[in-house]
Every structure is written in C-alpha cells, then in structure tokens.
C-alpha cells in the first residue's frame, strides 16, 4: 500500500499509465447498496434523502453531529464488476484517519475483496490504510474469470474512489432482485466484525446473492418516520429492524417503535419484516423491558396477519457462550454476526416459500 498526500498525486510504486482508470462516482452501475445513487438523485455514496436530517435536527438536535458522521458511511455498500485484468488498483480518499474503538481498521476502513464465480464467494484479501492515513493506493491480484466484489468500509466515508485495471471494467448483469434493507444501530452497521464484509447484513448479502441497503447508524437509530417514508419508496425483498439499544428510555422506545413499524407497513404490506430483540449479553435489566416493546409490536403484527417475524437474539447464543460472541455484551464478533445472519436467511427463505411475493 502506498500513502499519498492528495488524491490527485501520482503513485510512485505503480505506473498509473499502465492502467485504465474510472472514477467510481461516474460509474453507478457497479455500485450496490446506495439506492439513491442508482436512481441518479445523488452523487457520492449517499444512503439517505434529506428528510431524516431535518427530523433529527427537530427531534434530536444533540445527535446531529453523530448523524452527519454516521449517515455518510458506506456500510452495506459494495462494488461489483467484471474485468479481464489480472491486477486491480484502488485509489481512495477516506474521510476518517483513525481507528474506532472496538473495531479493527480492516472493518471500519476496510475494503474487503471477494471473487464471485458460479455463484460462489471466495474471500481474496482485505486492506485498509494505517492509523493516521486516509489517502492511499493499493494493488491486488484478480482472477479474470471471476467477478470482483469489494465490500466498502463499515465506519468510514469515501470522499474519492478510483479503480485502475489493465482492461475495461464492465458492470455485472445481475438477476433483477429487490434489495434487502436493514435499519439498526451500531451492531447492524457492523461494529466488532473483524472485517467489513462480515457484518451480518453483508453475510446475508453473500448468502442470498442479494443487494442490501444498510440504513443502520450508530447511536442515531431512533425509528425516524422520515426513514420509514424513505424505506417506503424502495422496492424491497425484506426488511430487518434492529434499533432498540439507541433508545434513551423505555418511554422513548414505546413512543417510536410501533409507529415506525406501522408506517413501514403502510408502504410494504406484504414483504417479510423481521424484528430483532435487543442484543444484551450482559443481561442488563433495562433491555429486557425494551424487548417487551418489540414483542408487543410483533404480537400486534401477528394479530393483523402481517408477514412479520421475530428473532430473539438471546436465543441464538448458548448461555455459556455469551462472553464468546461479543466484545462488550452487545457488539458482535463473527460468532454473533454469523448466527444472526443465518437466522435472517432462514426466515427469508421460509417466508418466501410459504408466502411468495406476487
């Protein structure tokens, strides 16, 4: 990896003239996970329209700084393309230079590279700049017979991104399948996975070979109705909701959770919606009360014959393994991430078998 002072600097370790370069922002056909980019509404890796910011400013002004930070991070996004080139170069400028607590740089700022061949995902490499650096150039080997799939950083914002290759970069013609959306907190955004591809949203993406929209935001996940309206605009295969831990109080969660769910159902009456109870592996008493709100919403959904499911996260891990699945009682390492992802995949498949979408 070579570090640069400016994104416009020429790399010294490789001859840039040997490569064809694309500005990824000019090539939305290879960008996945950013619905408004592909609609042509926004440039850069924008996940949200303008309304959630306005709602946060009005209702939770103390969180506007966190919102501005986390809402522009690229969690859930990936690049997918084909090229006959045997080498790929990534030239990138990230916003944040430093580590986040409880995470490796290979997660927070990591580009996690897979090759996809005959539907099979093979992990190839992962890279991230070192602490204190944010502009870099990195070259890695590529199998021309495979599609390249690069998961983007879970906890960083990409300011500039160029791809260099010895041959043309070509978008992949995928099966036209609606995306799976996630709305959650820091855990769902990906905190404490070892690398960016291993947050549970991205594991679901690989397992089902499906684009995901990860609208999760560390600390700001409040069940905003503007986000429900935004999710309502999208064509979705399923929606996963996991946001209880960001509630300041039981009263706040009671005020927000069911109305958020009902607003989603106004737009998406039939897709599978999966509600997750709180990830609470220190058995903190307050979160048990939060879960009553989530279970109450689930019961409301069942009484109204909704296509809604509940995952009790505490049931996914054996009691004598609570210290093995998370770094602090809630943020999952791969043990937790894979258990949650596998359960989500199981539910989506079962739901579609018994209730195929028209």
């Amino acid at each position, binding site marked *: 990896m070579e570090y640069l002072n400016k994104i416009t600097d020429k790399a010294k370790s490789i001859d840039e003239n040997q490569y064809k370069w694309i500005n990824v922002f000019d090539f939305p056909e290879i960008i996945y996970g950013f619905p408004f980019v592909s609609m042509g509404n926004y440039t850069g890796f924008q996940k949200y329209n303008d309304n959630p910011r306005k709602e946060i400013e009005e209702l939770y002004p103390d969180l506007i700084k966190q919102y501005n930070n986390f809402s522009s991070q690229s969690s859930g996004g990936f690049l997918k393309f084909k090229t006959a080139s045997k080498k790929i170069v990534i030239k990138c400028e990230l916003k944040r230079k430093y580590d986040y*607590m409880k995470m490796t740089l290979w997660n927070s700022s990591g580009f996690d590279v897979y090759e996809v061949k005959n539907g099979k995902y093979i*992990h190839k490499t992962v890279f991230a700049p070192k*602490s204190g650096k944010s502009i870099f150039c990195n070259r890695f080997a590529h199998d021309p017979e495979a599609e390249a799939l690069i998961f983007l950083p879970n906890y960083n914002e990409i300011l500039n991104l160029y791809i260099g290759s010895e041959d043309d970069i070509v978008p992949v013609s995928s099966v036209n399948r609606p995306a799976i959306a996630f709305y959650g907190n820091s855990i769902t955004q990906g905190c404490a996975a070892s690398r960016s591809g291993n947050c549970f949203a991205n594991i679901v993406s690989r397992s089902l070979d499906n684009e995901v929209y990860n609208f999760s935001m560390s600390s700001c996940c409040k069940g905003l109705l503007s986000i429900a309206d935004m999710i309502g605009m999208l064509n979705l295969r399923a929606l996963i909701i996991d946001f209880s831990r960001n509630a300041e109080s039981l009263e706040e969660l009671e005020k927000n959770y069911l109305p958020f769910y009902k607003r989603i159902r106004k737009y998406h009456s039939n897709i599978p919606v999966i509600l997750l109870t709180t990830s609470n592996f*220190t058995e903190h*008493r307050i979160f048990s009360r939060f879960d009553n709100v989530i279970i109450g919403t689930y019961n409301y959904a069942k009484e109204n014959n909704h296509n809604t499911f509940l995952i009790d996260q505490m049931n996914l891990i054996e009691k004598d393994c609570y210290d093995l699945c998370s770094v602090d009682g809630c943020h999952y*390492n791969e043990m937790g991430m894979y258990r949650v992802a596998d359960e989500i995949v199981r539910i989506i498949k079962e739901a579609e078998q018994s209730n195929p979408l028209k």
Partner: protein
Amino acid sequence: MPVFDIFEHPEFIAGCISCYNNEKVISSVPISKVEFDSYQIIPKSGGCYIHFLSNARNIKLNYRISAFLGGYFPHIGITAQRGISYSYRLLDNGFWRNYDCTQSKTDDNEVVINLNNVIPKDAYYEFMIFLPVNCFITGFSVSVSDDAQIKPYLKSENSKKALFLGGVSTYGVGINTTQFLLSNLIARRHADFEIQNVSFNTYSYWKYIERYSKGENSIVLTDYVFLELSFHDTDKQIYIQNLKSLLEFYIANSNAKVILWIIPSIDKAVADYVNATEELIASENISSRVKLCKSLLLDSERQADMYTYSKNYANDYGNVFIMQEIDKILR
C-alpha cells in the same frame, strides 16, 4: 475508599512486574528474559490480567500505559492494542460476561465501571481486567467504596501452570479486544490455571521461543504448553526440525503435556504440514505427551470466512474456535 495500587499488590496480577526503560511495568514475561530482540517483537502486557473477587457495585480504575507500539496493525483493534477490556462472572456457577472495553486515548486513564444493572444486590463476582498487547501498563489502581469488599483471586494449591508459546496469533494479531486473546479465553474457561503468554510479534518466532524456553528454569514446572504452529513461508523440513527440537526439550525437561494448535485453515498446504506434524509425533512415539488439534483444519470456504482474515490470522471467533478445540483435549 480502599484503593489498591496493583504494583504494591502483585497478588492481583496474572503476569509479572518487571522493569522497562527504568519504569516498573506489568509484563507477561520478565523483560530481562527477552531483551535479546527488538521492542517490536517482544511480549508486552498482552496476556496479563488483573483478577479479583468483589461485591462492589462500582469500580474505579486508574491506569497508565507507556511505550505504545504504533505502526501498521489494521488487524488488531485499537482497544486491544492500547486499551483494557473486562469481564465478570457471578460466583455460584455464573457464566462469564464481557462487560466493556476502553481505548486509552491518552496515556493516563480513568474508568468508572457501574455494575448496578447487571450484578444482583450483595452478590459476589469474579472480575478479570485484560491488559493491552502493544504497550506496557506502568500504573494501575483499583478503587471500590468503603462498604465493598475486594480481594485477589488466589489460585488453589492444585492449580495448573499453562505456558502459551507462539508468534503473532498468540501475541494478539487478529483480535478486536483482549478478551479474545487465546490465552485470555483459556483463562476464563480455566480460572485456576496459572497462565503465562510468551509470544513474539513475528512470523519467525521459533528461535525466540526456543531461546526463551532453554534459558528459563521454571519451564520444568509447567503442566501444559500450548504451542502455536505457524507455517508462514517456512520450508517444511525446517519447520519439522524446529518443532522436533522444541518438543524434545519439553519432553526431556518437564512433565508438561504439549498441545499443538494452528490458525484454522482450509489450505491444502497447511494440511500437508499438519500431516507431517502427525507423522513426527507418531515416529517419535510421543503421543502420550503431545496432542495435535487437527480439528482446526477446515472443510469449507464459509468456515474460513467465519474464523479467519486470511491463512495468516485468526479473528475473535477463530480464537474462540481454537479455544474450544483445545478445551476438548484438556477435558
């Protein structure tokens, strides 16, 4: 408010107090035993932990780090590099819970741990505070309220001595927080083990662990040796020679059972080395003393994805998997 300066109460420490740069530090091995090479490589505070019993509802920690090894560690969480992490277990058959961790943004740090929502009133618990891998701890005090009790966790007379020897994985490359260092995972599952983590931050660790072992008289007392097998760019013959030399030493000079483990791998080349290891154990007729965790060879890409970053590094779950396979042998 009782304040325990841990440096005045080494009975609280799993590790030792030694001297680095004219400062007292908590280290996993006496510095004088490993001064033969660079700071980059030698073991530091990683593998050490503070271990006590208490009924305190709030615990205040004041600690200082020094000699932070910066550099390119995208595969070690900053929390593991320079922070502390802590776990608790209720007495009366409680299970371990990871409570939280810190980043240590500055050299001097204060942490107040509020356990009111997780510990029942008047309940006693066991507490472990795991120390960082890429720096030393040069100051550490624990404070509790006047009406609370705190005492060191004292190992029983029958406690087993467990020596971890290895390279980058044993050192901590791959972990988010120090709760997931392999020796700390074993410490939680075998709280009565007296654990020492002698690991070197280099792929070429054989010469260092051999040098340490042969210079260290207390090796003969160890009950278990957990030996990391890493084949990074190593010729198979050289690997077998290194392994044979070390195994011969421990068999001749101790009664220890040696447990050999690898980073979980799907790689056929790794399987080749593992098979060669198995052949060595059989040909030397040492299977009663040397056990190999062959179950760490993986069947699928999915498993490799779950447990590793690459063939060189295990992640937190990979270390959990290694611990679980080692535990099957121990039990």
